[in-house]
C-alpha cells in the first residue's frame, strides 16, 4: 500500500518570503500522480497543483511550484511571495495511475502560518 509522509507538522514564513513544504511517499508503482491540496480554516479542500510522475518537468501554478524527485520519492511544494491568504493546512496526496484506482492517499498535513 502507498503511504505519504509530511514530516513538518507546522511551518511559518514572513509575508512576501518563500517557503518550502516537504512530502515523501512510498510506492512500488512507476506511474502515478501527486497533488498538493490547501485546506483553509473553512476546511474546504482546494487543489493547488498536480504532477504526473511520467513528466520530468516540475509543475508550476503562478506562485506555487513543486520539486519532484522521482528517484528519491520526494514531492515538495514551494510557495513564492507568500501572502496572508496562503495560511492554511497543506496536504500532499498520491494517486495511482492503475486503471480503476482513483482514491487519493493523503499525508498528515502541514499547517502554514504567514507572519505579517
Amino acid at each position, binding site marked *: 500500500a502507498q503511504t505519504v509522509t509530511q514530516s513538518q507538522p507546522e511551518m511559518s514564513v514572513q509575508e512576501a518570503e518563500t517557503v518550502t513544504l516537504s512530502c515523501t511517499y512510498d510506492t512500488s508503482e512507476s506511474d502515478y*500522480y501527486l*497533488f498538493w*491540496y490547501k485546506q483553509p480554516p*473553512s*476546511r*474546504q*479542500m*482546494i*487543489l493547488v497543483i*498536480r504532477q*504526473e510522475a511520467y513528466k520530468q518537468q516540475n509543475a508550476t501554478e503562478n506562485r506555487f511550484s513543486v520539486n519532484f524527485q522521482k528517484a528519491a520519492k520526494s514531492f515538495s511544494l514551494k510557495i513564492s511571495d507568500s501572502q496572508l491568504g496562503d495560511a492554511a493546512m497543506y*496536504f500532499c496526496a498520491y*494517486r495511482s*495511475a492503475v486503471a*480503476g*484506482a*482513483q*482514491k*487519493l*492517499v*493523503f*499525508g*498528515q*498535513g502541514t499547517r502554514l502560518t504567514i507572519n505579517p
Partner: protein
Amino acid sequence: EPEVTQTPSHQVTQMGQEVILRCVPISNHLYFYWYRQILGQKVEFLVSFYNNEISEKSEIFDDQFSVERPDGSNFTLKIRSTKLEDSAMYFCASSLSSVTKGTFFGQGTRLTVV
C-alpha cells in the same frame, strides 16, 4: 466555475440514529468519492463510486455505511447507526475519468454525534 456542493454543512445527530449526507458532484464527472477527516487528523478515503457501483472502499467503510446515486445528480452517504467516533468532517469529491483534471472536493459536512 462548476463545483461540488454538499448539504447540510453541519449535522448533529444522536448516537444510534441514521444520517444521510448529500452531495451534488460536478455534472460531467464520472467518479464520485466520500472521504472523512476526524478533527486534527488527515483526510481518509472511504469509498469510490463509478458506473452506479462501488469501485473501491476502505476498511473504514463497513456495513454501517452505504452510498447511493438515486438520480442523475445526487450522491449520498448513509450511516445507519451512528457512533460517537463517526464524528468528523465528511467530504464528497468527484473527478473525470482522466486524472489530469484532478479530484475536486465539496466544502464538507461536519457531522457531530452526541
